[in-house]
């Protein structure tokens, strides 16, 4: 791909976003290892997928995610302090500490929630697109899900519904090649997720998810299609998670070191950095400044979160309903 239309601002935003995600995830891992949370699904390795896509969205657009969604949240512009606080179950968290790592949401920034049930957000995102359609806004709804989630029936129901109603929803499958310890090639009959779009008369695209530039190009087209009222797109982004499924597990139990290395050698951040430098979009020193500020932001978030109080006991019974009597 030529990437001719990706300007300096976009590239630097994407670079910064991906570095922020990486640092955030590394820190989350440390917090988890320190026993402050359990079962943290790291998105390290997959930063490019939401970043390239969200580059085309604004605060009025919506993103919905999965159990592995920190990168979606950051790409959608969520506040790191509130995110980290949520991970630690603190009252200053996005959900006052009641949702946690699998349920981060911030409706003011258009993040309508991570979701712990595999596939479960796909129809919800379709409904968000329905709101845009019914109200005649030009908002777009984007839902991320895994290769494992592609086996859930709701994906098909939702592609069908979005297909007949031409809804502005983008289905983004992050094919990181594993669902827990189950390889993609075992669980997906036919060997391709994007190909399934054909059956619903909607465009299906497979893209190198390790290249944020490729993601940007594919995202631009899908977002434009949605905004134009031309309906949904299914994107299958080929990516990889570097860590185990939830952190504590060793991925070498089910995959080879060579395979891991293959993807690490194609790291999305290194990739983007090289592209920026080769194209002289920025100096090395500028990138180092960005690197430093990302780290500082994550460190600040960590301090904020650790200093924040836990929720009051009364919170246990609050927010079950808006009102109930």
């Amino acid at each position, binding site marked *: 791909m030529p990437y001719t239309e990706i300007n300096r601002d976009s590239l630097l935003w994407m670079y910064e976003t991906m570095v922020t995600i990486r640092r955030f995830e590394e820190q989350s891992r440390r917090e988890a290892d320190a026993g402050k949370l359990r079962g943290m699904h790291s998105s390290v390795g997959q930063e490019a997928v939401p970043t390239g896509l969200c580059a085309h969205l604004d605060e009025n657009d*919506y993103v*919905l995610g999965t159990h592995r969604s920190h990168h979606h949240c950051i790409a959608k512009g969520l506040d790191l302090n509130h995110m980290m606080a949520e991970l630690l179950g603190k009252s200053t*968290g*996005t*959900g*006052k*500490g*009641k*949702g946690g790592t699998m*349920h981060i*949401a*911030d*409706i*003011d920034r258009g993040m*309508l*929630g991570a*979701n712990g*049930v595999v596939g*479960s*957000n*796909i*129809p*919800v*995102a*379709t*409904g*968000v*697109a*329905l*709101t*845009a*359609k*019914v*109200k005649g806004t030009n908002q777009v*709804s984007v839902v991320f899900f895994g290769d494992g989630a592609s086996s859930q*029936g*709701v994906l098909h*129901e*939702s592609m*069908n*519904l979005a297909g*007949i*109603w031409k809804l502005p929803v983008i289905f983004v499958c992050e094919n990181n090649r594993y669902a827990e310890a189950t390889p993609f090639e075992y669980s997906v009959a036919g060997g391709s997720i994007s190909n399934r779009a054909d059956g619903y008369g909607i465009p299906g695209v497979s893209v190198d998810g390790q290249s944020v530039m490729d993601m940007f190009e594919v995202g631009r087209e899908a977002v434009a299609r949605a905004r134009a009222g031309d309906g949904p797109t299914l994107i299958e982004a080929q990516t990889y998670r570097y860590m185990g499924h939830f952190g504590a597990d060793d991925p070498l139990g089910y995959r080879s070191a060579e395979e891991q290395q293959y993807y690490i050698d194609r790291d999305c951040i290194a990739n983007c950095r090289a592209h920026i430098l080769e194209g002289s979009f920025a100096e090395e020193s500028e990138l180092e400044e960005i690197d430093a500020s990302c780290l500082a932001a994550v460190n600040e978030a960590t301090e904020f979160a650790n200093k924040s109080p836990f929720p009051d006991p009364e919170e246990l019974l*609050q*927010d*079950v*309903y*808006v*009102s*109930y*009597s």
Partner: protein
Amino acid sequence: MTQAEATRQISFIQAINEALRQELQRDPSVIVMGEDIAGGGEREDFQDAWGGPMRLTKGLVNEFGRNRIRDTPISEAGFVGAGVGAAASGLRPVVDLMYVSFYGVCADQITNNAAKMHYMFGGKVTVPLTIMTGIGAGTNSAAQHSETLYSIFTHFPGLKCVVPSNPYNAKGLMTAAIRDDDPVIVFNNRQLMGLRFDDHVPEDQYTVQIGKSEIKQEGDDITLIGIGFTTRVCMEAAEELEEQGYSVEVLDLLSLSPMDNDAILSSVQKTRKVVIVDEDYPRCSIAADISALVAEEAFDYLDAPPRRVNAPHASVPYSRPLEALYVPNKEKVVEAALEIID
């Protein structure tokens, strides 16, 4: 109220239909979705071909158009989930889940998403979704089209559950459900759809408060608690018990979650005896829930153990003579009442 208004009798079906129509008129963010709620797909020549299996939505598509009245493919998880997303992003969708047994293909969207989003997201997202669904046996439709099941939804925090018993409260509860900022499930009994009622139903909009029960008639010797269709059964039983000389209080529950604990307890504290009549399966049912409430909170007032009339712990049989034995009826209620009344 003029005489003409005072005698405005409409059917249960018309009442729901009117509630939907008036809310659609009043609030542009209300939409309705479901299988064949309009019918005819987008065929211009066959607009409004169906109107739902019970005709609850008949005529709406002509008035409000296909943008707001949407036929869906048969994919409940897909369109109930879409209802959740639409509700969380600014609409007030009413989703028709034709019969409650079909909850089985979309329960995830109801209990994992609609019920939990407000809590998980720290109160910052609301899901003003209304689900309406058909319940109840008595129509020769067998095990998969005759369940009641409101008990399992009452189990889940985050959901509200209401069960109208006549056209008046059907209209008022449906209107209240749509306006409510929490997800509400309205359970409409299929037998009620076919019955005639004497109640007056105002043409103007009104709401029946979610969370409140209604004393259908006052009495001193025993309380009968009915839910939707079984409220009728309780009224019939009350008549017979009165003929036998007893003074009977009948409470129409209307709302299962929230439940009007106070009203239940005050009635039982007065009469000191209670029979709960519920068409749902008996185990972990709303009837058991009420029985436990009364035992735990009105223990010192009770003169006799609480009694329940439930459907048996069995699937709904197709064969009519068996089905007739299945549904709670007047005889069973009278029998249960007489067991504890003396």
